[in-house]
């Protein structure tokens, strides 16, 4: 199962994506694409229904101004389970999905029954997507069977909700661990039942641990997705989360997805950005391409 990963060359390849020059038409198109792929996220202890409502409004209509053609909504709003109902209500009739973190996010340090119950509650409240965390403690102590079994059980209670499996790569540390965890997660999800394209994602981070998403980490995960597709014909999704703050970074990620998996993956049903501050930077660049000048940061609403 262990496939070696060479950090130096992964870094070199990841750097090469950031050297692509994305200008004019392709920049415009790329930024719109990035916007449509954002999971607008709030995961704080102080989150309130009102905060989630304003986030949902932003998600549906990211910018108040007019631009032709109209800007897309973001892909989803990502909240804690207790706020799923609020989000679901606010997003009614829109294309924006409700994603809920679950399984004792972010640590996952709870009994399995509690974690499964957490997922069931979120699904019952109307979550379209579940962002689960894997059991890193078990993974690092080498108990892959337990990690795998838990993932299968979580997928088993997801119902029709899509599943995103958070590896928390900052805690797994090495690229080899990340490769193993990615493979293990995909196979465990598949064990619980057949996967349709985009029903299962692997995701880098909770955003609570640093480092979160990086280009090399995401590249290794994309390569696992590519290999799994070659083997089975099934398209697994990818979600880097945390640390992607600028439009330029987002474009680098899209270049990496395009050159590793191909244009097929350049859709919100197979690729997401877990981010919040990214939205306004993307908007700022988009508006700049439209008007020819940079708008002030206060010209864009905070959610």
């Amino acid at each position, binding site marked *: 199962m262990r*496939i*070696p*990963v*060479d950090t*130096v*060359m*992964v870094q*070199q*390849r990841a750097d090469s994506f950031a*050297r*692509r*020059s*994305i*200008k*004019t*038409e*392709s*920049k415009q*198109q*790329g930024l719109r*694409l990035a916007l*449509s792929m954002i999971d607008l996220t709030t995961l704080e202890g102080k989150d309130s229904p009102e905060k989630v409502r304003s986030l949902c409004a932003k998600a549906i209509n990211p910018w108040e101004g007019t631009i032709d*053609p*109209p800007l*897309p909504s973001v892909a989803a709003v990502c909240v804690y389970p207790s706020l799923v109902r609020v989000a679901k209500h606010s997003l009614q009739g829109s*294309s924006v999905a409700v994603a809920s973190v679950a399984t004792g996010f972010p640590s996952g340090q709870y009994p399995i029954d509690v974690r499964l119950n957490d997922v069931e509650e979120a699904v019952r409240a109307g979550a379209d997507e579940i962002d689960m965390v894997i059991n890193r403690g078990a993974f690092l102590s080498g108990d892959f069977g337990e990690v795998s079994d838990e993932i299968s059980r979580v997928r088993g209670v997801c119902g029709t909700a899509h599943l995103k499996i958070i590896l928390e790569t900052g805690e797994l540390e090495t690229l080899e661990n990340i490769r193993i965890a990615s493979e293990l997660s995909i196979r465990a999800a598949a064990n619980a039942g057949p996967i349709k394209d985009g029903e299962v994602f692997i995701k880098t981070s909770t955003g609570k641990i640093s480092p979160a998403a990086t280009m090399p980490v995401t590249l290794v995960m994309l*390569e696992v997705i*590519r290999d799994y597709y*070659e083997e089975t014909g099934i398209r697994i999704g990818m979600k880097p989360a945390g640390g992607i703050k600028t439009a330029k970074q987002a474009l680098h990620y*899209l270049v990496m997805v*395009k*050159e*590793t998996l*191909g*244009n*097929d*993956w*350049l*859709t*919100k*049903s*197979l690729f997401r950005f877990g981010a919040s501050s990214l939205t306004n930077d993307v908007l700022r660049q988009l508006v700049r391409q439209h008007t020819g000048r940079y708008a002030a940061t206060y010209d864009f609403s905070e959610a």
Partner: protein
Amino acid sequence: MTTQEQHDPVGWEYSPAPEQIKVHIEPKNKLFINGAFVSPKSRSWFSTINPSNEQKLADIACAGKADVNNAVLAAKKALPKWSKMCGSVRAKYLYRIARRIQERARELAILETMDGGKPIKESRDVDIPLAAQHFFYYAGWADKLEYAFPGRSISPVGVCAQIIPWNFPLLMAAWKLAPALACGNTCILKPAETTSLTALRLAEIIQEVGLPEGVVNIVTGAGDTGKILAEHKTVNKVAFTGSTEVGKLLMRSTAGSGKKLTLELGGKSANIIFADAAIDQAVEGIISGIYFNQGHVCCAGSRLFVEESIVSEVIQKLKHRLQSLRVGDPLDKNTDLGAINSKAQLKTVQQYIRTGVDEGAEFHEVHQDRLPSKGYWCNPCFFTEVQPSHTIAREEIFGPVLSVMTFRTPQEALTRANNSPYGLAAGIWTDKGSKIFEMAKQIDAGVVWCNTYNKFDAASPFGGFKESGFGREGGMQGLRPYIRLQNTSGRMK
């Protein structure tokens, strides 16, 4: 926008991103002799073209016998003062050249790409920065030479004739000039006839920094000019980078003349991938090994040896990876492979591809639909079902053409890797440290890269064994060909 539309993948393509700066090129480019640009006494000129669109860029002077003679005499005249100059003062000039290369980096990169066909990404990120680094590095040695050769008395070799190839024009000029100047020699540099422009910009830089007249002379021309230069009786040393064929001629012509000689010649380097390697990264190594600079690299990893158990996986991943390589306008910042340097070279490469097919190897290429209609183009490609006896497995192609072969045991990999008249470089890919050392010490190659390929640094010596030449460039070892050593212990006071 409906939900359904948003789910459809978009055909996201990169818009053209051409380098916008226009670089001025003189219509007539003269010779640089004794600190001045002079018209050739030969009255002969030749044109240099842009290989990506076949348009003429400029006329270049063709140095004849009288011109070469003037250049050599200028170098001879400048030698006493330059060689006796305090090392730290020589260093000052070299530092100035290095800094000026950095300051004019963008112009040099664009020119290199226009004249040679290599992608701007590579001239900008590899060629020009490394050229500057070489001058910086050898500037550091200029006042420390006695520490490089402790207990010996040192003196410069004298007048050096330096003949360089077209694959890394400015970088090769830097490899040759920097150590020679640091050691107190004077030089006559002859660039390749298809790529003279950046060497002549370097001449401008040499003027700007006030290097004493005659210390560096640059004579442009084809093989004949090089022959006249190498055979000139006042020349003390010949340094050549280029084909093994010309290298052999030079060895004959300098034999018995008392001239020192260093040769950096061709290669057919083995890139060996073991089953326990990090495969995805090894595939990156294949790419940078053979497709870097359109394969116009003497140390290109043109013979790929893959352990039999993983060969189908490696081939499949290689094919996949080739799809994202972008061939096209070298001035576009997103281009990965530019144009083949010349029509003649394109013919050579195409001939080898035909031979490969004729001899029974299986040809693979990813078709690119964005190749320009004019210019010299060759898609990155590779051969499978290659036998070690095939021409494409033995001869240097100097293009983006890879020969894939297999092995079963480390010993077999070694035997096959060493079964070549060349011995320039090799690559080893394995996650097992002990295997790296075991292999590296038995491979007959001057440079062995482990889990990487085509990495260069001014501090690292480069050079080959067997028919790949002799002498080292770069590092402390790169000083040796430009120094005459005496044993101080044997000298009378």
